[in-house]
């Protein structure tokens, strides 16, 4: 055991926490600048919904809808 493990730990804390705070502070600045820049120079012309697009399932939607339509028909036919 080195005699100065505590001081190593303190150093790690100071530099580590300092870096985390500095990095995220810079990220606040960068993000704010980026949002302003995008909002000013590249506003979205088309109206985009606020929530993220649920497009991950998109490739299957048409097929799913087809299957469902068929199922609904089948379901009704059975009645």
């Amino acid at each position, binding site marked *: 055991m080195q005699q100065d493990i505590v001081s190593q730990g303190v150093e790690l*804390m100071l530099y580590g926490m300092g*870096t985390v*705070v500095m990095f995220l502070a810079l990220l606040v600045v960068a993000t704010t600048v980026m949002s302003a820049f*995008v909002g000013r120079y590249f506003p979205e012309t088309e109206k985009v919904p606020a929530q993220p697009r649920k497009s991950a399932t998109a490739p299957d939607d048409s097929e799913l809808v087809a299957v469902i339509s068929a199922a609904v028909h089948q379901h009704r036919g059975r009645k």
Partner: protein
Amino acid sequence: MENLLQLWNSSGLAQIGPGQAFMLVIGLLLLFLAIRKGFEPLLLVPIGFGGILANIPGAGLAYSAVENAVQGADPALMLDFARVLGVAATQSAKELLTAYAASDSATHLAIQQLAMDAGYGNGMLYSFYSVAIASGIAPLVIFMGVGAMTDFGPLLANPKTLFLGAAAQFGIFATVIGAVFLTSIGWMDFSISDAAAIGIIGGADGPTAIYVSSVLAPELLGAIAVAAYSYMALVPMIQPPIMRALTTEDERKIEMVQLRPVSQREKIVFPLVLLIMVAFLLPDAAPLLGMFCFGNLMKECGVVDRLSDTAQNALINITTIFLGLSVGSKLVADKFLDVNTLGILGLGIIAFGIGTASGILMAKLMNRFGSTPINPLIGSAGVSAVPMAARVSNKVGLEANPHNFLLMHAMGPNVAGVIGSAVAAGVMISLVGG
């Protein structure tokens, strides 16, 4: 008769030790907590099951070929090992393994070849661990999948919440101090690398904790992963008392202004901004945050949905199965049952508590100096533990003010906490791991 003896000797009952029996119970307990109590089951079911497999007496599933050979203890082979390692032939099994661990790569290879030639092989879980964790790949792939499931919208709508995510990482570094303190007074025996890996439990982020442990303290990985996931599951119990103690009723009632809509383009550009900042300022965090940003970009860019979909489903699920079993391999009795494990469990919960408190206090501080009111309850979400911590903020907020929906506001510090602990991971690998 000889066969019956061979069968009996190879049976578990003939070989089981008290440590293994205890660890089997621990494995069952983890399964119970995961299945019955809902403790992060996606990870704790594989980890618990892997822990049981690892402690099956005589199967050696968690050991390398070399470890299995040393346990086999064939005298001629042990002489060969000692000769190659350059140690006295009278060394015990433990001393041989220590000498092996300290030897260089060429010696490793020679010893492995001897073990293989003698018919010993790597255990199944050891192989899983090598491929999934020792290579670093599984945590990175999971981080990519998490990125593909993360919505940075609330963070972009209110970037200042990044400060909350930063503050809550104080839990990490306070725990480092705790670990070195326990070492300095002689209660535990952690190196500075160990302390850093233990601290990351306070990051409340499973893949980050596993990644850092695999680099800085592989022998502690089992305890650290179990602590991280258990405490993440316990967030709804750990956080509310601290949140109530540090806030007044009035503060908890603060309603926050509705978040502005965020455009898709901002969401596409954000992971690139984050990536460039990582590239310029903290390259050691590049693997973790790079994969995270990659997953997020795939999700948001809208043109590679089939890749994003796979990253969020098949790929992350496959990786989770093997990651969990691999972590379980570190629950093998002779590595897990150690006083240090108790220290890790104790320090881990302190880390969560301090992180929670720091986040709340930072929110109060920002309230004092900023103009827009912030409900300090969202500060606790900065530890990450996505999305549990944000839900806790919302729940405690609703108790104080039934019209106060904090969930979306708390998602900002919540995902900021993921970035924060990945940054902390990068710093620690950079300072300690070099």
